[in-house]
């Protein structure tokens, strides 16, 4: 009796839900083909890629860690690794606290209309591509014709070649990152601030607390967990690399500080056909990234926060 009844139950369940499963076919197929299937190609890192044989038939490399070994002996790889860490680290140091401060500032802005206008404008750069931004930067910062140097020249400074000298390139790279994302990254903090109980502010007002005291004792603790979760996510990405930003900005004169892992892998892998070597580098990068992410998450949990999973 029992199995029969459960069989009928299954049939009834499927009759009610089959359209839902039908809907899932496309998204699942997408994830399997374009997100999970390429993971099988990671095997390239331990094979000698042969263009005519394809990924599967290519022979295993001997020893298996051959390409890792080769990568670790390549000077350009270490340079790209160092630059990735350096640029992402600087991004974290400058790019992380600034949106918090800007969010606090916007929150204190007393004029509602003006606040909305400010928000609209500071979010805008987020929607411009790195190609557009680098195109603008090259014109603005050009040593002779750029408006920045023209104005500096009137003040008796320069001309400064922002994009062609090592230290200045790094500074410009970080500054443009701030320009693009600083405003956008305030959104999540501003949302967290609206979640703070207004009674806390009223009580503080009665106690005669100053503006700074209220920020320090109410607003900041109120967004503490948001700050920590975002900090974890950002630390997890310290070895991750964007592609458009460094690729659009770099030029031959500053490759020593501008080349990062993503652009190195593109140049040597896709342009230079060294698929096995660059797969090994990519795998190394992913593994370290995952380790970073897990450690950061564990760290947050130790601080008594929710973490990201």
């Amino acid at each position, binding site marked *: 009796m029992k199995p029969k009844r459960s069989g009928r139950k299954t049939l009834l369940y499927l009759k009610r839900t089959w359209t839902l499963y039908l809907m899932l076919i496309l998204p699942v197929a997408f994830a399997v083909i374009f997100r999970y299937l390429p993971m099988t190609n990671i095997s390239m890192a331990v094979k000698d890629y042969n263009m005519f044989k394809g990924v599967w038939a290519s022979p295993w490399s001997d020893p298996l860690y051959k390409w890792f070994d080769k990568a670790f002996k390549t000077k350009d790889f270490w340079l790209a690794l160092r630059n990735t860490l350096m640029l992402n680290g600087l991004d974290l140091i400058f790019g992380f606290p600034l949106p918090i401060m800007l969010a606090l500032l916007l929150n204190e802005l007393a004029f509602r209309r003006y606040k909305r206008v400010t928000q609209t404008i500071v979010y805008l750069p987020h929607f411009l591509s790195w190609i557009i931004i680098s195109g603008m930067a090259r014109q603005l910062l050009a040593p002779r014709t750029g408006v920045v140097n023209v104005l500096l020249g009137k003040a008796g400074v320069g001309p400064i070649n922002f994009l062609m000298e090592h230290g200045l390139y790094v500074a410009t790279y970080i500054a443009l990152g701030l320009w693009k994302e600083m405003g956008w990254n305030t959104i999540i903090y501003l949302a967290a601030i609206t979640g703070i109980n207004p009674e806390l502010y009223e009580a503080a007002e009665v106690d005669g607390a100053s503006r700074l005291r209220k920020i320090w004792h109410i607003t900041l603790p109120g967004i503490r967990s948001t700050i920590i979760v975002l900090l974890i996510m950002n630390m997890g990405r310290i070895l991750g690399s964007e*592609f458009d930003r460094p690729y659009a900005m770099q030029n031959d004169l500053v490759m020593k500080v501008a080349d990062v892992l993503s652009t190195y892998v593109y140049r040597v892998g896709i342009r230079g056909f060294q698929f096995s070597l660059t797969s090994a580098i990519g795998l190394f990068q992913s593994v370290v990234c995952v380790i970073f992410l897990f450690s950061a998450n564990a760290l947050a949990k130790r601080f008594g926060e929710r973490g990201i999973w």
Partner: protein
Amino acid sequence: MVKSRKRKIDDLIIAAVCFLFILICLLPMVNILARSLSSSQAMINNRVTFWPVEFTWESYFYVLQDKAFVRSLWWTALLTLICTLVSLTITILAAYPLIYENLKGRRFYNGMMLLTMYFSAGTIPNYLLMKQLNLIDNPLVLIIPNCLSIFNMIILRSFFHTVPDSLRESAQLDGAGPLNVLVRVYLPLSKPVLATLALFYAVGRWNGFSDALMYVPNPKYAPIQLKLYQIINNRSSIETAQQEGFSAPVASEGLKSASVMFATVPILLVYPWLQRYFITGVTLGAIKE
């Protein structure tokens, strides 16, 4: 309670600092706009700052004479339209079944999708996949491989969750199946969120660069960002002309500014419309179940 005098002064200082941020965000764009509308002679003499000097449309006409550039603009517009429709459909299909709490396999499916946000195969394995699927130089490669953003799926799912279950249940009592419920109850209610997602997808495709660079060597299918990148990196510019002592009217600087404007203006056009919604969108995306 009367605001103290110090309070008011503080408010003004804060407003002034915010104005500084506004300037920082806008002035670079204003300068490029001014350059694109100035004569090349004015640019060579460094007379252009934030207002067009010797106003002229000539740079824009130069750009429009470049047939490949104009073609690329239309092609990217078409691509953006197709991508947005395809992506929106798939996102709805991906997010909607998740609101059925007792759907079997729901947790597994959800986990499988979220996992792809943290782990990806990497540049080279992805490139090799496109080769295996024969997608290199195929325009489809600019549409399909990024047609679903898990982040956007989460936003939509979070929004669907805010729709009261009672609405769904009453529709079900009337005999409506899941598809009917989606079309009659959920989609009409989610118009603002769908608009946000459509614009996220559209801006993403319009700004997309690296997929075209890696997977589409054929210049016929080059989207606008790739074209723009090539124009910006063109060596011939006023810089070299000045360094070598020419004073010939080199139009290329104005041409670069105008090209940048062509790629930027569509975004500026949709932006005011978009920004009404995206704050809700982004905040919804922060909820991850």
